């Protein structure tokens, strides 16, 4: 199979403008004849659903949460980037584009990233119009702050709850369309399969989580905006419900999964404290604007932080990366933390932690300034650790946070299955091998508000509406397969919870495919995962009969998918014989421990296609074409 990125010809800066003009339109009177199914109601899903409904399409949305407003985008703290250059500090669309491409270690598609930077400015305007209360200066103008991997201040924010406010904005637009009758919302409804009819995505099979009933929905297109797969590592900063099921089911129906090994490990999370732990909590990257990261210079130094004099502290990011300092990109800051802890200089119980210290900033600007800027984050830290971060430095350690890989899409955000579009974190397209801070919110909203409303129309203009119903054999068969699998889960009748398997899988993934990977560790993981999967189908216990609300059954289904998907992730990591961004292979590093890319052999997108049960997936390569940027050594020194 040949993967065609469908990037339009012409100069980089003109591609999107030109493409927008050349794309076909659907007549306003005909739009209402098309039914669009949107799965996931985070930033990408809610913004797409609302915008498409405004255009006149019939939209139905699905989410497993009890309300669209609770999708995990809500938890994003720090901010959203936009190339407004309000600060007059040298920002531009091109600079945001270049920072993002470089931040992604030259593994993203140029044209997609340029378009992202281009529409970033419209996102801010749209959100302001909806009433998103972005932080303001005293003069009433929008305020900005800095984030990692950039030397300009281009991040817009709402205290430490930017994701919440942006999602509530998109959700309110969605609410308006629901009240107008243009969108039908299905909360507590989980997609369990994709239905492909005649080579085209035509619907989904869902389970109503309240009644337990399995049914199908037919559409003229299916949009997946179902987020990433961080919880394949069990412990991550993601919400407990986040899962790979929708995208993995689409993969099993033929959609290519691209770059699954590109996972982001965020440097500033609260360290793990015990075996019972169910999740990790992120401390926003914005804290690195005012906090300084350090460890003791001597390994094994057990003194409390206030007893360690300045001369015996190692501000290792400032030392190693003088020009970016504490604002080095996430992958680099995470690896640096791992390195100092591996040297025995980590702090806190277990020695897996580094200090994030605000005492300088508090001395310089006063406690009130810090409280105004980060109050809710400090409170959150105090809740969890029972320590006062205004008095003692925070202890932080890297944790899984975001996944850059996802379903393969072309420039139009359509997967290799016609009619299946993939948006936001669920696709692979914009962040390459590492995502910069404040770029996830930007991408989710760019895809939903400003890209898919155009590209979907272009696709629909080429196909007549309707023509398929849920009585088609493909729907009946998919429903049957979903029901059979649920029955199979209920029939295992073992006595280990799905959580137990999930936790075991997480350990394998973190130890052998985490911040550092090697051929040896990956082969070990690839041997262990099938054993664990087999044990799951023998020993897992799912009480109940599948009728009514059954959180244990929901969880078991998601864990079963993670147990298959984990293998795909490791296969991809093993095949990529280079280090880039979040993918760090121990065999491929420079003498000073930096990631060593291999552009000659690996400057491509690795898109994997399902070949059947127990068969290795097929690899398709989409070469990355560099028309404007020349990949260089990514230095933040």
């Amino acid at each position, binding site marked *: 199979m040949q993967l065609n990125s469908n990037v339009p010809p012409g100069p980089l800066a003109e591609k999107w403008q030109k493409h927008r003009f050349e794309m076909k339109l659907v007549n306003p009177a005909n739009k209402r004849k098309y039914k669009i199914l949107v799965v996931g109601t985070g930033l990408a899903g809610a913004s797409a659903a609302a*915008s498409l409904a*405004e255009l006149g399409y019939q939209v139905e949305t699905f989410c497993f*949460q*009890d*309300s669209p*407003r*609770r999708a*995990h985008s*809500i*938890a994003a703290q720090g901010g959203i980037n936009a190339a407004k250059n*309000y600060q007059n500090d040298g920002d531009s669309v091109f600079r945001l584009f270049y920072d993002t491409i470089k931040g992604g270690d030259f593994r993203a598609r140029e044209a997609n990233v340029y378009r992202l930077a281009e529409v970033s400015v419209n996102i*801010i*305007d*749209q959100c*302001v*119009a*909806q*009433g998103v*209360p*972005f932080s303001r*200066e005293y*003069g*009433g*103008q929008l305020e900005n702050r800095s984030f990692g991997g950039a030397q300009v201040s281009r991040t817009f924010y*709402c*205290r430490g709850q930017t994701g*919440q*406010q942006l999602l*509530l904005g998109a959700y*309110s637009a969605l*609410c*308006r369309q629901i*009240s107008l009758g243009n969108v039908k919302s299905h*909360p507590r409804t989980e997609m369990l399969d994709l239905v492909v009819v005649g080579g085209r995505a035509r619907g989904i099979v869902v389970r109503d989580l309240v009644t337990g009933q399995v049914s199908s929905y037919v559409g003229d297109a299916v949009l997946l905006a179902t987020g990433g797969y961080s919880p394949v590592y069990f412990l991550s900063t993601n*919400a*407990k419900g986040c899962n790979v099921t929708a995208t993995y089911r689409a993969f099993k129906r033929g959609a290519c999964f691209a770059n699954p090994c590109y996972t982001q490990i965020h440097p500033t999370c609260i360290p793990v*404290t*015990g075996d*019972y732990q169910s999740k990790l*909590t*992120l401390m926003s990257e914005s804290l690195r604007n005012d906090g300084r990261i350090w460890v003791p210079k001597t390994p094994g130094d057990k003194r409390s932080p206030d007893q360690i004099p300045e001369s015996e502290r190692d501000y290792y990011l400032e030392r190693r990366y003088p020009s970016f300092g504490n604002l080095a990109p996430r992958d680099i800051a995470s690896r640096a933390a791992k390195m100092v802890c591996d040297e025995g200089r980590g702090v806190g119980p277990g020695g897996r932690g580094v200090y994030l210290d605000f005492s300088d900033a508090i001395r310089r600007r006063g406690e009130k300034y810090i409280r105004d800027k980060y109050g809710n984050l400090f409170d*959150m830290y105090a*809740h*969890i650790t*029972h320590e006062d971060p205004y008095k003692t430095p925070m202890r932080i350690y890297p944790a899984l946070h975001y996944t850059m890989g996802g379903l393969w899409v072309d420039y139009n955000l359509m997967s290799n299955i016609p009619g299946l579009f993939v948006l936001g974190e669920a696709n692979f397209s914009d962040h390459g091998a590492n995502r910069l801070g404040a770029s996830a919110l930007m991408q989710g909203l760019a895809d939903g508000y*400003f890209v898919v*409303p155009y590209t979907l129309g272009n696709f629909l203009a080429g196909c007549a509406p309707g023509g398929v119903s849920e009585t088609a054999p493909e729907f009946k068969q998919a429903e049957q397969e979903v029901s059979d699998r649920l029955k199979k889960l209920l029939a295992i*009748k073992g*006595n*280990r*919870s799905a*959580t*137990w398997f999930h936790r075991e899988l997480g350990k394998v993934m973190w130890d052998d495919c985490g911040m550092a990977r090697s051929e040896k560790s990956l082969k070990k993981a690839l041997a262990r995962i099938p054993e664990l999967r087999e044990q799951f189908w023998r020993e897992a*216990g*799912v*009480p109940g009969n599948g009728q*009514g*609300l*059954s*959180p244990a059954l929901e969880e078991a289904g998601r864990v079963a998918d993670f147990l298959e998907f984990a293998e795909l992730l490791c296969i991809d990591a093993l095949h990529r014989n280079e280090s880039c961004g979040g993918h760090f292979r121990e065999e491929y590093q420079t003498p000073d421990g930096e990631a060593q890319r291999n552009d000659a052999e690996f400057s491509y997108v690795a898109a994997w296609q399902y070949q059947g049960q127990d068969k290795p997936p097929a690899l398709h390569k989409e070469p990355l074409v560099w028309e404007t940027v020349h990949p260089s050594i990514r230095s933040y020194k």
Partner: protein
Amino acid sequence: MKFTLHVWRQSGPNARGEMKQYEATGVNPDMSFLEMLDVVNQELIARGEEPIAFDHDCREGICGSCGIVINGVPHGPRRRLANGKIEAKTTCQTYMRDFTDGQHLWLEPWRAGAFPVIKDLVVDRSAFDRIMQAGGYISANTGGAPDGNAILIPKRDQEKAMDAAQCIGCGACVAACKNASAMLFVAAKVSHLGILPQGQPERAQRVVRMVEQMDKEGFGNCTNYMECEAACPKEISRQFIARMNRDYLWAQTQDLETTSSGGAG
């Protein structure tokens, strides 16, 4: 640590519920309340029993999914902090170290006619979504918005709007109120949009429609007990209720009819 749990178990929306007793042993003081329930549930699963159903997702106090009444208090008893303030938190931000070893804990769902129980500790809060659909938005289609700095917003207004906008829609305010009133939730949204200049064109009809929907859903009225404010994990101020009442009264004086003359062709 160990605890004796008394948990509301109800197998479905129309089933009769009852309090059932469970023992939680080997509890680490640094466990979160939900992690303690995870451990209890794993033991139930190992015995082939149905685990306790409860809503949860982000487990960091922002998604608004979780909500258990613990010992009579929505989201659980609140500590007094070192600075003298009473802590504001969600169920997922409650830690076992805040209870006494051997304590009995009573776990109940939100109790309100407008929040019917689905199962065990899980309730149906879709009434909140319907209130939002009634008017909790600014009508601004995608595209064509003016530059973000075209409308200057004084910092104090933006901060006040943000204070209201922080609401996570968990419903603790309703659970805490003896009238099961949703005034604090509705007031937060009405105020967030009503304070901002972008929200002015629809201000009158927004407050009227949202209040009407709130009444239709069966929520009670406010009798100024302020329990809602005390229970709110985001410290939404009761002053927003006063603000909403003022807006609602003012809206009665406005012409809310919209007439459309149609296209002149």
